[in-house]
């Protein structure tokens, strides 16, 4: 479980400090797909970067099963990071390595396994994300969806306790997005990982949102589940959820027929 307590973060801009996060608190649970949602520029990515320790918050604490990342020294942070997997928006696969090389990389650096064991584990992860047969391909030879799957395989190679995904569906078609969402959801439940997904894709929210944290202009806007999100009396959240005609139609349909697409 990851607990975020009153996180504040500001940046220097043209000689002035601009506050991006205004004291956000939230809890992200084990074995659940936790989603951070919000409009572009709302502070989602800054929040995730504070949680994983790429940014240091101005105030507040981030507790990984009770361990506060904001007060850790370099050695402790390094140890904790071995328990973290991350899927980046652009996949961030190493261009010079094949799919197998990318997945084996964290194993080679940290596992202490023999070459053969590393290869077996990497192959298992590649098979798990349905990329069998693409082991020898380089990232430039893969489609966007395949790159995301390879990045997921790399992220889970060391059996992480915490998995972070930054916009996992960006640049993907709706069908491939569903495949990625389902894969993330399956992996989360299968291994009991604390998964935090940063997204503004409403299809993901409705598909896999078990614990949703809505960030609005750097403030905590709402917390709930995909089943609750349609009936919230929150203008900012409703503006976000019903931004498209499709979801406005869903809302009208629901009011008439009581249909809930999240179920």
């Amino acid at each position: 479980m990851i607990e975020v307590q009153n996180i504040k973060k500001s940046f220097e801009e043209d000689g002035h400090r601009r506050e991006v996060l205004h004291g956000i608190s939230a809890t992200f649970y084990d074995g659940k797909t936790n989603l951070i949602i919000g409009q572009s520029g709302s502070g989602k990515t800054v929040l995730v970067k504070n949680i994983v320790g790429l940014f240091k918050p101005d105030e507040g604490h981030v507790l990984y099963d009770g361990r506060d990342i904001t007060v850790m020294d370099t050695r402790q942070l390094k140890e904790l990071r071995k328990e973290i997997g991350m899927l980046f928006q652009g996949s961030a696969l190493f261009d010079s390595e094949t799919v197998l090389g990318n997945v084996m990389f964290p194993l080679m650096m940290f596992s202490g396994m023999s070459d053969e064991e590393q290869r077996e584990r990497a192959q298992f992860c590649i098979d798990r994300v349905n990329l069998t047969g693409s082991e020898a391909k380089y990232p430039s030879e893969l489609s966007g969806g395949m790159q995301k799957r390879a990045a997921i395989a790399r992220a889970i190679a060391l059996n992480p306790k915490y998995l972070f995904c930054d916009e996992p569906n960006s640049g993907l078609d709706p069908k491939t997005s569903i495949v990625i969402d389902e894969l993330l959801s399956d992996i989360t439940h299968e291994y009991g990982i604390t998964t935090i997904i940063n997204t503004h894709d409403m299809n993901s929210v409705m598909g896999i949102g078990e614990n949703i944290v809505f960030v609005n202009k750097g403030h905590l806007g709402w917390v709930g589940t995909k089943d609750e999100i349609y009936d919230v009396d929150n203008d900012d959240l409703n503006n976000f959820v019903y931004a498209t005609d499709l979801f406005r139609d869903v809302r009208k349909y629901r009011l008439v027929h009581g249909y809930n697409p999240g179920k």
Partner: protein
Amino acid sequence: MLITKSLDSFGRYCRFLWQCAAVPEKWREFFKRYTDEIYKLGIDSIPLILIVSLFIGSLCTILIKLNINNPLLPRYAVGLSTREIILLEFSSSILCLILSGKIGSNIASEIGTMRVTEQIDALDIMGINSASFLALPKILGLITIMPFIVIICMATSLFGGYLICVLTGIVTVDTYIYGIQTAFIEWYVWFALIKSLVFAFLIASIASYYGYTVQGGSVEVGKASTDSVVMSNIMILVWDVILTKLLLM
């Protein structure tokens, strides 16, 4: 304002170097990357070095011959002057200025692209010291291979002068060879090798720093690549003066 900015950049550069100075996480991986960099930065540059050195050696010989018309000067002065120019300046300083364009831009754009595509963030998230992981093999690799490059450059340049003597007969081959052997000071070779080590460090570390600190997209990567070459060139010239004063005077 400019002074403050320069000091700020220098401080960041020093911090980057301090980060790079960490002990590698995995020696096996480090040596793999180190040998790859020696090959990529050094061995791959040899064709360019051979071509440039051959022509510069030939040009030096021709130009010195054209400018030494005084009958009081011996004919072997052509070979002697060519050798001194090549040993003292061309094989280390000018060669490194040329290489900073090829190697420096290569390093800066490679690391810069890794930065903007979040590959460096991925390394950081894994708990890897990304600065040391990426830059240290490049810095040490270039420092290792540079003296060999300088020796190849010296030999090829002198051979270029020899070749022009054979092909054009501006000076007899025997006179040229006599000239390059006359009043030979071994320290000049060591001087060139010492300078090349410093320049190799400057090229690789400055390019790595510019690449590592890129923010933005492809335009910024291109700018960082250019800036790294400009800064490397300036630093090579500054240190050329300092080292010449320290080691030769």
